[in-house]
């Protein structure tokens, strides 16, 4: 009897630990989401201005490459942009998947990490292609 109660108590404690870990994870992700949002807000304003400027002066591969080769600041800017987006997008998708489709838990977390890594790899590859 007491052994059964003991094991139930252990299971409850384990569940509480698990819940605390999830709350900590969610809080950390919330903070990361907001921190990346601040970076992205600045990047998106620059990006929109660049889009307006670029299409007015004619969108050609030569023009894009010339701009990006003109200063190390451009590849650096895009690297920051890609990292922030690769952090921001999967956290948002994870929250939406949990709220709207019920897809949550370990598999959902791993899927979000995979999306982030894929975005990071694709984005940095593109910068490399344009800047190298």
């Amino acid at each position, binding site marked *: 009897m007491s052994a059964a109660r003991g094991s139930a108590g252990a299971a409850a404690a384990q569940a509480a630990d698990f819940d605390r870990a999830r709350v900590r994870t969610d809080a950390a992700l919330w903070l990361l989401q907001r921190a990346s*949002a601040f970076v992205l807000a600045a990047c998106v304003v620059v990006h929109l201005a660049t889009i307006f400027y670029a299409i007015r002066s004619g969108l050609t*591969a030569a023009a894009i490459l010339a701009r990006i080769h003109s200063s190390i600041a451009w590849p650096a800017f895009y690297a920051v942009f890609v990292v922030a987006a690769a952090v921001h997008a999967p956290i948002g998708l994870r929250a939406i998947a949990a709220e709207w489709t019920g897809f949550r838990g370990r598999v959902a977390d791993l899927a979000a990490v995979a999306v982030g890594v894929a*975005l990071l790899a694709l984005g940095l590859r593109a910068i490399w292609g344009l800047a190298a």
Partner: protein
Amino acid sequence: MIRQGALQRFRSHGDRPAGWWAFIVHRISGVALALFLPVHFWALGRALEGEAALDGFLRWTENPGVKVAEWGLVVLLAAHLTGGLRVLALEFLPWRDWQKSLAAVAAGISLLVAVFFLLAVR
């Protein structure tokens, strides 16, 4: 009794509060941008195959259908930025009404400057 301002009444639509619409637009635009991002990176990655490959892709984007889609994406990006700034303001700023009015005036002036700038660039 809580007095509802004219602006607040204007922003509400039916029985849905304005915040609900802002939330939905922010969410849908976010998902759309997340889906578009890998395609965007893949397209720019064409530069790895040389300038001609990237130019070939850019010629495809001259297509009127693609042009419309591009403008849609720019609008989605601007909408998501605006919605995101709203979320950050709600969460981080303990603002008073006069401060919100000041922010609205500042946003209006910024928009005017931006429009003049865009007209000047042409």
